[in-house]
Structures are given as C-alpha cells and as structure tokens.
C-alpha cells in the first residue's frame, strides 16, 4: 500500500497494458502531485494516449495499480463512474455531442451525474463558456463552431464537473494552426489557476511555459523525466535526443 500523502493525487505503479499480444505499456510508474502540470511526450505509438486512458480506465489496465487519493481504482469494488467525475478529459477530436448545443453539452453531465438543477447547471455552464471566451456561442451546435471553438467547449464541458485533475489527449493536434493558440491560452490559464493537469502534447511553447515536469514515453516506458528546461536543453537519453531532433 502506498504512503498516504495528501499531496499525491495519482500514483501509478508498474502499469502494463497489452492489446492482444502487443505490449504497449511495459511497467510505467510515476506520481502526480496536486497542482502539478505534467506534459507527456514521445514518439507515435509509444503509449502516451494509452497511459492517459488507463488512468481513468477508458482502457482497462492489464496489470499494475493506479491509486487515486489513496484508493486503487483498478479494484473491482471501485465505482469507476465516481472516479471519472473527478477526472476531466479532453480528446483530440473534441467528441462534442453533435445533437446538443454548446451549453447543453456543458450542462449534460452536471445535471445527470451530479443531479444539479437545470438552473444551476446553466448558470455554471454559462460562466465556464464565458471563461473560455464562448459566452456568445452558447446556443450554437458543434457543427456551427470552428475546431478551436469546439475544443474550448469540450474543455468547458470537462470543467463543469469541477474535476480535481484534467487529462488532455493531444488537444491541439486536430486543429488548424491558427486555432491552436486560443486553445493553449485557455490551458495556460487553467495551469495558472493551479489545476492539476496531465497533457499529452508536442506543443513545445506551451510545455516550456506551463509544464512543471515532462515525461518522455517511448516503447511503453518512461525513458526520461525532468523539468522542461532539462529535457529540452540537455536531454540525457539517446531516445530523447532523437525524438527532440525530429520535432524541433
């Protein structure tokens, strides 16, 4: 059993994941403390997304422990829906609900999971849409919004559950270049407000600005970790150097 430590939000211990015979995660261990912004980088197919998705069990881990606030969420006794309400997730392809307007997207989960009244949920939803700069788009359907706007609604939707931690799975890689900035701005704002965040991304500028720690995930292992300055300026591992050489 892990050390009870109020500052550790998520502790991952020896996480393995197989897809059929393919060994995607080969024993990942790390700790994420409250208020920390962790960037996950690494080559394609290295297991970044799988790592993120295992932490809220969108993928079932094959073995290992994921301890959230002192409780192993891989245990069958855990109500995973309760855990997920504390973990906000933002997807590469936004995954907004196309049959609902922006505000309906944002208030759906608070109303049906938190059993909030329509009025309260609408109020909170509007406040969040204002925060991401889309107060005037509340009644638009997702197909009437640009990619950047859709992703900001998706962030507001995740925030509406008042999660303790936010996961971002390549939030800007499906966006046109001119829309990346607006999404990163919102994310930087959240980081400044002290939100705990795990971000799979290759946005060097954002990582340098906002991240406290970078994990280099390659071939299912954390090959190197450290502050953005350390990783970008003097990477120690050959794998990290190769990877950075390719994306810079």
């Amino acid at each position: 059993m892990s050390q009870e430590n109020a500052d550790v939000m998520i502790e991952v211990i020896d996480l393995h994941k197989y897809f059929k015979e393919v060994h995607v995660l080969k024993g990942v261990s790390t700790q994420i403390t409250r208020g920390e912004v962790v960037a996950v980088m690494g080559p394609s197919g290295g297991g970044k997304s799988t790592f993120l998705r295992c932490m809220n069990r969108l993928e079932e881990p094959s073995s290992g422990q994921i301890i959230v606030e002192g409780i192993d969420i891989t245990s069958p006794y855990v109500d995973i829906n309760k855990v997920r309400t504390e973990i906000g997730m933002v997807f590469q392809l936004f995954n907004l609900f196309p049959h609902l307007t922006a505000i309906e997207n944002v208030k759906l989960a608070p109303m049906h999971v938190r059993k909030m009244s329509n009025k309260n949920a609408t109020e909170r939803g509007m406040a969040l849409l204002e925060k991401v700069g889309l107060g005037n788009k509340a009644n638009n359907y997702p197909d009437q919004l640009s990619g950047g706007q859709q992703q900001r609604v998706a962030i507001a939707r995740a925030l509406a559950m008042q999660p303790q931690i936010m996961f971002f799975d390549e939030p800007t890689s499906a966006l046109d270049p001119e829309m990346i900035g607006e999404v990163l701005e919102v994310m930087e704002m959240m980081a400044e407000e002290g939100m705990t965040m795990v971000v799979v991304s290759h946005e060097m500028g954002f990582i340098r600005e906002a991240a406290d720690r970078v994990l280099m995930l390659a071939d299912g292992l954390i090959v190197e970790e450290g502050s953005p300055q350390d990783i970008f300026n003097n990477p120690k591992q050959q794998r990290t150097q190769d990877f950075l050489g390719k994306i810079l």
Partner: protein
Amino acid sequence: MCFPKVLPCLETPFVIDPIMSVQTAQPPPPSRFVRARPGWLYVIRRYEFIVLTLVLLVGYAAFLLPTADTPPALRLISIGGFILLVLAWCVNILADGEKPDWLKGLVALGFIATLGWLFYRYSGTKWDRLSKSFFNFQKMRGAWPELLKGLLVTLELSAVSAVFAIIIGLVVAVLRSLGNRTLNIFLIAYLDIFRSIPMIVLMVVIYYALPYVGISLKSVTAAIVALSVGYGAYAAEAFRSGIESVHYGQTEAARALGLTRFQTMRLVILPQAIRVVIPPLTGVLISMLKDTAVASVVAAPELLKRAREVYVGKANPTALVMAAMIYLVILFPLARFSNLLETRLKGRLRRR
C-alpha cells in the same frame, strides 16, 4: 526574314534556312486525342442514322409484327425482337450526353407508349368482360362500409404491432450493443430465424400450431404477435445500424464525464442514432402495414378478409380492386413521406 529563337539544345546541330521553314509550315501531326476514323458510336449517334433506323422500326411494326394468321411460335419471336430493337434504339439516344433533354423525354414517353400499344394489340384482353368483373362498381353498393370496417382492423393491427415491433427492436439492438458473445448468439439467432420465415408461415404456425402447446390466441392477437415478432427483427437491424453509426468517441466522452452505460445510451447514443434509424424504420413499418393482409389467412377480419367476403357474397371480384385501391391510398403517401423524411434527415446528419 526573322526567325524565332530556337531552343538552346537544338541550336547547334540545326541550320535553319527558308526551305526548312516551309516544311514546318505543314499541318501538325494528328493529336493522339483525335480518332483516326470516326468510331461506330459516332455513326450510330448521328441524327441521319437515328431517323433511318426509326423509319426501319416503323416498317417492322407495319409489316413484320404478327397478324391473325401468324403461327404462335413466330408471334413471340416477332414481338420480342421488336421490343428489343425499340429498346436498343431508345437506349442509344438516352445514353448520349449530347442529345437534348426534351428529345430524351420524348423518346422515353414513346417507349412506354409503344409497350402500351403492343399490350393493347396483342394481349387478347376482353375489355368489356374485364370491366364487368373487376370494375363493376354498380354491383358493389353497400360494400364500402364493409371494407372500411376491415380497414379499421388493419390499422389497429398495424398500429399495435408497430409499437411492439419498435420496442422489441430497440431492446434487442441495445442488448446487442452490450457486446456479450453468448447473448449475441441468441439475439442473432432470433434475428436470422424470424427474418427467414415468411410472414404467412409464421402467422399460420402461431395461429394453428401454438394451441397444441397450450397457447390459444385469437386470430387478431395471433396476427399481432406474428407481425411484432417478425418485424421486430427487422426493426432491431435498423436500430443496430443506427447505434453503430454513432462514433465510439461519443461513448468515450460520455463515460469520461462519469455517465453510466445506461445514461450514455439514453442521453448520447440514441438521440443521435434515431436520425439514422428513422428512414429504414419507416420502410420496415410500411412493409409491416402491407403484410397485415396476410392476417386474412388466420381469419382476422381485416381489409383483405372483408374484401374476400364481399367478393364471395356478391359473386364479383370488384371488391378486391376496391381493397387494392384503399391500400394504395393509405400506403402511397406513406412511401412518399418516408422518402421525404430521408432527404430531410440527411441534411440534418451533417451535425457530427
């Protein structure tokens, strides 16, 4: 004389003199896009050719089509050959992108008219007897109320069965989306078995055979059970295709927000699936409405059964034509409506 500057690579070996320039003034070599000789398509699509063949076809119609003393074997060959030639002639014009639209419309009308004329001339129909037995509305006095009573039963049958078929289809499709292998074997067995049994067989079995296992159903109830179970299988397929058309990212996003599986299905998947489902589902329900006529074999007093009673009672089959007209009046707008719905919903599907 002033000559244009020649490409540098050609400059050295060639000496350009007036004689050479006369030779280059000859027509350029034929492009590879131009046919050496006009092809057969070019020939058969010329207006001269089309008019000539039309004259030949009219000649065929005048002299080669069978008369009263043509032997029967030759009659078939002669008429069949004529239809094939007319068809070829029409397709030749209809398939030509350069012919004007009004001409094509005329040709299409002409083809239908030709078929009608051939039928009128050679079918051997006795028109007076036909109208006396099938369109004898004087004899049908008092038949309409009888038929409308039948129509009421037909509508009741289809409404009740539609509700049950939709419920069965929805439940089966949702259960199937859970993805349990063992359960799916049973569900697929249900779908495949009931989609393979003809409705008339299903109804007869339910009505005449089930009493032997202790389940006696009235004829209307038996018809409802057969229609619901049989068309529930089709409805389930429609719902399944709708549910599968929703991107899996939707499920993930909903689950990541903490919604349960059931909430995800109810709030996220089904509202999106329904737009995909409605056109095929309308089609299924229209087929079901038509198949209510089968219930007459188990003596349910629906439209066709009533029509047959009138037929027997008045010894005239005009009642059947009247029933056909009622089915047409009910189903024709429905079929149009489902087409309209499909076009309308396709526009809305953009939202995804």
